[in-house]
């Protein structure tokens, strides 16, 4: 049931592909038809870095159907470096406390299982605390 929707959103879910407005250069995620900043048509794709920081966060105990097995889990509004806010789950937290301002980066994780044991595993973006990379190329 959700397969066409997931297929349609694959660029966003796997790569954080949004848009850059050709008129005012506003960076948009999720993509929209009309730029909210200038009202012009926004159709030019733009891939976000995936880096940002926690703008707000909470923990979900009573999960909606399809997410029960993961509860409790942490969700956040992440402020991307390029400007937009993204709603997503936080992952790989370990013992670490999440705070407003915690630097995070996008990773690909399983969002949920669609249907029964033969159903689709739906993958998409989550954010984890940003790792220190010593040998960055």
């Amino acid at each position, binding site marked *: 049931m959700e397969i066409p929707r997931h297929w349609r959103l694959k660029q966003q879910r796997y790569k954080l592909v949004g848009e850059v407005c050709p008129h005012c250069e506003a960076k948009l995620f999720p993509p929209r038809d009309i730029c909210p900043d200038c009202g012009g048509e926004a159709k030019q794709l733009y891939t976000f870095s995936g880096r940002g920081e926690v703008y707000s966060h909470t923990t979900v105990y009573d999960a909606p*159907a399809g997410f029960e097995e993961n509860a409790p*889990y942490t969700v956040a509004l992440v402020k991307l470096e390029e400007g937009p806010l*993204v709603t997503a789950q936080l992952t790989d937290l370990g013992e670490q406390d999440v705070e407003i301002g915690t630097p995070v980066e996008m990773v690909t994780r399983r969002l949920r299982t669609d249907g029964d044991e033969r159903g689709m595993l739906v993958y998409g973006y989550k954010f984890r605390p940003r790792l220190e990379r010593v040998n960055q190329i």
Partner: protein
Amino acid sequence: MRKVAILGVGQTKISEHWGMSLKELAAEAIFAALEDAGRSSIDGLFIGNMLSGSLNKQENLGVLLPDWAGLTPVEGVKIETACSSGGSAIRTGLIAVASGELDSALVVGVEKMSDAKLLETTSALATAADADYETAHGLSFVALNALIMQRYLHEYNWNHADFAPFSVVAHQNGVRNPNARLQTKITEQEYQDSRMIAKPINLLDASPIGDGAAAVVLVAADEFQNNGNSNLVHILASAAATDTLSIHDRKDPLWLSASEISARRAYSQAGIQPEDIDLFELHDAFTIMSALSLEACGFAPRGQGPRMGQDGDIAPFGKLPISTFGGLKARGHPVGATGVYQIVELVKQLRGEAGKNQVDRAHIGMAQNIGGSGATAVTHILQGI
């Protein structure tokens, strides 16, 4: 456009009505409103409802209800704007009568939530948010409000405990409302110790769901106001506005811009200022929503909504009584019916028929119904005779 008035109101108790179906609940409110209005017929039925398709597996309420209530062949239509469906149905009925297309309209808000399991209900409520970019990531409706509240506490330096008065006052008012879902007092300590749902929102920050229906009869004011009908309540203003569906798309996630715009339009239609409002039925689905609504509607400065709770302004005899029959918090939040309950309660206050919940100098009252996390706001201003 003609001026529109409310001639009659009706409501059911909000509860888990195991023995009643959606149509039976709606009919109880419809018949009560017609009786209160002294009428047996109506020209159109406007139905506020959000979840009948998902929770009751029943659509086409625009026929189901006239059929069940013996009102066919009047036209019927379901209006859906998530939690503000009731307010939107009132506004739609009002537009029909104001335009002269219909001479009278019956607006009923109904939600039957106890037919479904909690898990199903949680998912159904989340459909008010963006399916692709919010609910697909496991966000519940509570979680979205929690994201706003968490940031609000951080940004404006409030503690969770500072929101207690919104919940305590609503519960106090609910005690005196026989139709309320929750008729129990709570203390500030109980508020603070309550079970966490989605930090910082705990159980006593959140409104309870329930089964319920409320109805109002709308008529052209001119035809009735010279009859010496003291029950008539005038609708001075009706305005609706939208914001982005998702919180992440807002320039300022801590500001209810739809709420502000619809309130401002309503003040301007009524030719009044916020300080002329005697009581305010606001959309306290969560305590954070009370604070944000008071700010957006011009009663408190930005970031200072909780101050009105601290100062006692929102109590029944304070500067601006809110949630006078318990609000969403204690009266209950049968989602698509809520906006109509707000109007029924205002009418009772303005007629002086609010009993133990009656507030002083109830002359002009305002109701604001919010859909989604501030995505739709419908504001009505009413005046008694």
